[in-house]
């Protein structure tokens, strides 16, 4: 496990994040047992240099929490995170700050992720100041200008003094990208960066991410509930269900040869913008339950799985290699391959 791959930017090992249910002071005193939502439960993976790894799942599957935990916006319950060999979780505040120049995040909500009382230039200037990126006022102006051009907010003068309230969602998301890009990071977690944007500008922002990767070699974790956009930008995709990775493979393998029944359900549920394609009912049943009422020793997808057997209830399937780069966590995988 410890063997280090040179072009590996991020490695996550057995990451766990449990949230206690009922956080109130009283509740924890008077009810003896502690209950948890296992938002992220024993997740391991790695991201290579210049790679875009997608995390796809429904809301509540833990993908956002995982992204925030990697950047230590949330402290994990346990596990290890390595950025180019440096362990992130045990870092002091000061070291963490310098690491923030290398690891960054783009958030989902473009309307909320910029301070409404700051202009575009002031937002970027704030980042420059926090990390003391430049020495003179003139350099600062040049850097801001260059960054705004990089994220295609041109002509720069038109955006310089604008408050966020006067920009569209797509433009705001570009400012957010610029604020991050100015630090010259090596790794970015993009948490649903286009889900709140209009369709007509989504592709523009996705293309920006791709260009950031191609031009600066930045690695990404792209978190989304939308397999279609994930397919568009990702090299590899991991499917998450209730805190666990249930399948991880190269993008086209996931799309064309899904192994896990949940992945199959997800793929057949994705809407297709073609009126000639007919909707068929899903093989999946029930709803996603977020409470911790599952027995920890069963497959989490068991209650909704059309192929579930008694064994699925008794045993939690490990993530095993199916084909060369294709991992899946399903007991039935080998024997029922023909079924799929």
């Amino acid at each position, binding site marked *: 496990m410890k063997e280090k791959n040179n072009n590996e930017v991020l490695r996550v090992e057995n990451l766990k994040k449990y949230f206690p249910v009922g956080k109130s002071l009283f509740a924890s005193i008077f009810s003896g047992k502690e209950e948890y939502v296992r938002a992220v439960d024993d997740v391991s993976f790695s991201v290579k240099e210049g790679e875009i790894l997608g995390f796809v799942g429904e809301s509540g599957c833990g993908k956002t929490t995982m992204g925030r935990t990697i*950047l230590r*916006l949330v402290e994990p319950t346990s596990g290890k995170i390595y950025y180019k060999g440096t362990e992130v979780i045990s870092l002091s505040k000061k070291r963490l700050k310098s690491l923030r120049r290398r690891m960054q995040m783009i958030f989902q909500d473009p309307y*909320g*992720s*910029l*301070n409404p009382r700051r202009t575009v230039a002031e937002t970027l200037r*704030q980042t420059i100041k926090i990390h003391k990126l430049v020495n003179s006022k003139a350099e600062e102006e040049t850097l801001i200008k260059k960054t705004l051009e990089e994220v295609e907010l041109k002509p720069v003068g038109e955006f310089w003094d604008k408050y966020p309230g006067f920009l569209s969602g797509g433009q705001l998301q570009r400012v957010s990208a610029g604020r991050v890009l100015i630090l010259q990071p090596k790794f970015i977690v993009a948490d649903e960066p286009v889900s709140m944007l209009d369709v007509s500008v989504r592709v523009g922002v996705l293309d920006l991410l791709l260009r950031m990767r191609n031009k600066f070699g930045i690695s990404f974790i792209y978190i989304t509930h939308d397999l279609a956009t994930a397919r568009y930008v990702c090299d590899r995709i991991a499917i998450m269900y209730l805190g666990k990775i249930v399948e991880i493979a190269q993008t086209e393998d996931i799309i064309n040869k899904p192994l896990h029944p949940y992945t199959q359900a997800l793929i057949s549920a994705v809407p297709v913008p073609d009126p000639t394609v007919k909707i068929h009912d899903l093989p999946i049943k029930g709803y996603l339950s977020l409470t911790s009422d599952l027995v920890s020793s069963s497959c989490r997808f068991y209650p909704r799985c059309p192929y579930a057997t008694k064994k699925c209830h008794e045993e939690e399937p490990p993530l095993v290699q199916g084909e060369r780069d294709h991992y899946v966590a399903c007991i039935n995988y080998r024997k029922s391959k023909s079924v799929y």
Partner: protein
Amino acid sequence: MTISPRFLRRLKKLREFFSLLVRNRMGLVGLAIIILFLILAIFAPFLRTVNPTKVGTSKNILLSPSPQFWLGTDDLAKDVWSQIVYGSRISLAIGFLAAIITVFTGSLIGLIAGFYGGKIGEILMRIVDFFMMLPMLPLMIVLAAVLGPSIWNIIFVVSIVSWPTTARVIRSQVLSLKERTFIEASRCIGASDFLLMFNEILPNVVPIMFAESVLMVTEAIYAEAVLSFLGLGDPTAISWGMMLHFAFESGTMGKAFWWVLPPIACIVILIIGFTFLGTAITDILEPGYKEAHGF
């Protein structure tokens, strides 16, 4: 020094705010009332007719209004108009000072409690809740009685009783701001807690602090009036509440309405002035905030 464009923008916003305020009917009335009393307080030495503390001769006791005594005299033959003029000083001073102290303390505690949540926040809020549970006026009376009568004690008492309200309002604002992604985004960029609190959150709650201060002024003016009326005021200072107290105690109230009505009118009008101003400000700055305060 050259004027920065940022400063100019602020100035423009301030001007815009005032033009909106003046166009708001309540705001205009409130502002006019407050300015009137400010003039009264500042120019008190020129506006008074006689020394308000001077006890007059016995033939001048309880005189009704006349060209010599504009608002008549009290039972010690002191001039009512001059007392009214000087009383505005006490009310405004106590109002402003108590409001500043209250809003400063309350905002700081609200900011910390909201920002840190967790144990610190919970403990702070329990304290706030506890204070809010205490009956305000009895607490003020008890404190004022124990500490002894002085203007500074009244300011202290009003502040200690009022800060929890502000703390609560600010905290709820901070809590909702904290949920906004830009705070997390700034943290992710590397901003320290201090920077987050004072550079990201604070500018967003300043309008509310401003509105809150105006409301606190009314609380303080009211508190001073009641405490003084109940005989807990500073006997060496002339205030409207004290005038009412002496009138009430003298037993001659029914015969000398010129002694009673002016201080009542002043208290009520000044409080209405600040209430109107506060309502107008919240109306302009934060449409959602009004409902939170029940206006």
